[in-house]
Structures are given as C-alpha cells and as structure tokens.
C-alpha cells in the first residue's frame, strides 16, 4: 500500500529512498549548524539553472565563504553520497515580515477606481473576496460588447445563492469598509451552487460594472494572455488576491473531486477541480489563477491549511457565457 507521504512520492523512485532517508536522518544535525535555518528536498540549482538532480536543500540565513566557517558549521557537498544545495533565504520569522520592504497586508483592501483584478470586492451582505478579472459576453466577438463584468465567485458576489439579481456589489467589500457609497456594480448572473451531493463545476458569478470603473489589468500580474490554457500536474501557477496578494503554487492534482465547507453545515461537492499547494487564505476567493505565461487556468474559491482549490476556467467562462480576452 502506498501510504508514503507525497514528499517522497514525488521523488524519482530509484532516488527517493536514499535522499529522503538521508534528509530525515541528518536534518536535526544540519539545523544545529550556525547559519542553517531550514532543510528540504528539491532540485539542485547551479548558477541559477535547475539541473534536475534531486538533492538535500540546506537553507541558510546568508551564504558565507567556506573558509570563513568553522569546520563544524560547513555544509558538505554530499551527505551519505546524496548531493546538497545551499540556498540563502534570509532570516525566517513567524508572523508578519518586519523589513522595510514588507508588502502591506492592506494593499488590496482599499477603494480603487478603476478597480483592478485582485482588489477587495463583495456582495453587500458578505464579508469580502477578490475581484478576479474583467470580462464581457462571449457572444460579442467580433462586435460591440454592451455589458462589462467583474468575474468572481458565487459566494463573493451572490452570497452563496442568497442574492437577487441586481443586488449591489461593493468595492471594497463590506469587511474592508465598503458601504453604499462604494457600489461598483450589480449582480448580473451566477451559477447556483448545489448542496445535495451532486457535482458542482464552478463557484462563479458576475457583477455588471461601468466600463470606466474596472480595468482588465490584474494587480502585479498584468493582462491575461489567453482565455484558457491546459494545466498539468507540477505546473507552477500564480494569482493576486485581496488577502495574500501575489502568490504562486504548484499543481498537485487535476480532475479532482472534493467536498467544500460553506459554513452553517453546508457542504458542496465539486468535480473537475484543480488542486495546488497552498497559495491563498480567506478573502482571496475569486482570484483569477494564471500560468506563468499569464494564460488563464482557473478561478480560486476554496482552500485548507495545505491546499488551494481552483475551478477550471474553461467551465467558468462557458457556464457564465463570458470571455476574458480576445485570444
């Protein structure tokens, strides 16, 4: 039975046991060395290039010339014949960064006009989520779009099926101080979420906005390149969201079926989902997820302490009848 941890499962079989076991065996010893702040497993980089060789990663506060270190604090090039890679990561703190260049946690919680992808937004009866991106009706291509929308989640713009079409949408969301003076749009349509054990594909909704009040640019990421790109396991993906700002994650699973908690005892089953390493927190719901070429791959809507759950953007656009870009 394959009950090993995923960390080991992701290593090449012929290499997995030796490097994994060596890391486990020597971890405490390594952490005891001056300047070492962490130990991990990954690929070895040489001059910034991924060599593809699995290794034991040794994270240090800063790199020091080996001659400057006492022998007891040096990191050998191999441990039990397994290669090591020393990576400088700076000091690690629990909690908020304290450096002068730390990103403000409130960076995307304010009012902005035109608002952007990544900004706080929400139905007037919810807390706050994220405005994912701008979009327009798919059928108007080529042609003259008459309506423009913010794309986000049902539970952000439609209060988990509890809203009426035309309800006001605040930017920022109510939790971030949004009031009736901050209406950016009105709920236009949404895909209802079912809580009866049947499969949901998306948690998605649209708010219609004035063209001048929302730009298609996503904060820190720019413009979406293509409407859709296939996503593969181990791909790196990115998003900008209201709470955790710009983050990246690695795809763990596709075609996933997962139960999601909506509070008050309500659980919805979602199928055909994308699962990534954790890249979100409360308030990031609605973020558009892109690959590293800025192609749309999904709509973020849920997560646990260790994973993030993402709707496939193909289903989102198809079911809502919109498109994000012309390509």
């Amino acid at each position, binding site marked *: *039975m394959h009950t090993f941890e995923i960390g080991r499962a992701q290593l090449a079989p012929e290499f997995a046991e030796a490097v994994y076991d060596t890391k486990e065996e020597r971890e405490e010893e390594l952490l005891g060395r001056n300047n070492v702040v962490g130990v991990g497993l990954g690929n070895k980089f040489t001059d910034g290039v991924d060599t593809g060789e699995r290794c034991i990663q040794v994270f240090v506060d800063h790199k020091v010339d080996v001659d400057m270190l006492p022998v007891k604090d040096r990191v050998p090039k191999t441990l039990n014949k397994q290669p090591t890679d020393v990576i400088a990561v700076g000091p690690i703190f629990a909690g908020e960064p304290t450096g002068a260049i730390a990103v403000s946690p409130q960076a995307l919680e304010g009012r902005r006009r035109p608002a952007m992808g990544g900004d706080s937004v929400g139905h*007037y009866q919810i807390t706050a989520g994220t405005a994912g991106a701008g979009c327009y009706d798919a059928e108007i291509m080529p042609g003259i779009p008459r309506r423009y929308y913010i794309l986000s989640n049902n539970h952000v713009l439609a209060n988990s099926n509890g809203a009426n079409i035309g309800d006001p949408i605040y930017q920022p969301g109510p939790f971030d101080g949004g009031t009736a003076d901050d209406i950016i749009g009105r709920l236009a349509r949404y895909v209802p979420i079912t809580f009866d054990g049947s499969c949901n594909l998306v948690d998605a909704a649209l708010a219609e906005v004035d063209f001048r009040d929302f730009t298609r640019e996503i904060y820190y990421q720019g413009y979406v390149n293509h409407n859709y790109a296939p996503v593969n396991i181990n791909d790196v993906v990115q998003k900008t969201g209201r*709470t955790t700002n710009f983050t990246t994650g690695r795809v763990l699973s596709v*075609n*996933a079926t*997962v139960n999601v908690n909506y509070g008050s005892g309500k*659980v919805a089953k979602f199928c055909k989902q994308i699962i990534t390493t954790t890249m979100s927190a*409360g308030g990031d719901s609605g973020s558009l997820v892109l690959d590293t070429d800025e192609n749309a791959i999904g709509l973020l809507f*849920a*997560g646990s302490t260790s994973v993030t759950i993402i709707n496939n953007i193909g289903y989102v656009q198809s079911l809502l009848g919109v498109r994000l870009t012309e390509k």
Partner: protein
Amino acid sequence: MTGSGEGHAALAAALAAAEDLMALPGVEGVGQGEDGAGAPVVLVLCAGVTDALRASIPAELGGIPVVLYDIGERPTAQPIEGWPYDDLSEPDFM
C-alpha cells in the same frame, strides 16, 4: 500509461472508483496526481491520515497506485470569516 487510450481509460475508471472512497470519514476528495517519475496516481485527499484510513483505502485501483495526501481539514470557501452577517440590514438605496 498516460499517453495511451488504454491508459486514459484505466485512469478514468480508477478516478471514478476513487469517488466511492469519499464515503469514508476523513476523505474529503480524490484526484489525479503523478509520482516522481510522471506516472499517474490517484490522490486521496484526507483531513488527517489515520491508521483507520490507511487500513480502509486500497493500495491501487485498477492498477493505478493510490497515494494518501493530508490536506489538514475539509477545504472551506474563502471569503473573509468572522463578519456578523446577520447584523447587516438592507441598505437604504434598495
């Protein structure tokens, strides 16, 4: 296996069978994953990997290996939590 029609069919069948595992307490999801060599596996997403789950979940489904993955707890929709929803009255412009 991933490149053949037969492989796709086997994986699809394994994923379909894996959904039955969601009836087990603590299993919150299943999905397609890969091992380090790029071969397909069935990921079983667990809110804590317990001995009981290990004993209940098969090593493979239709020839596809099954891997347990601990996701901590059931995923939650991610708006900001803690807002007193019920205290909000309708705005006066409605």
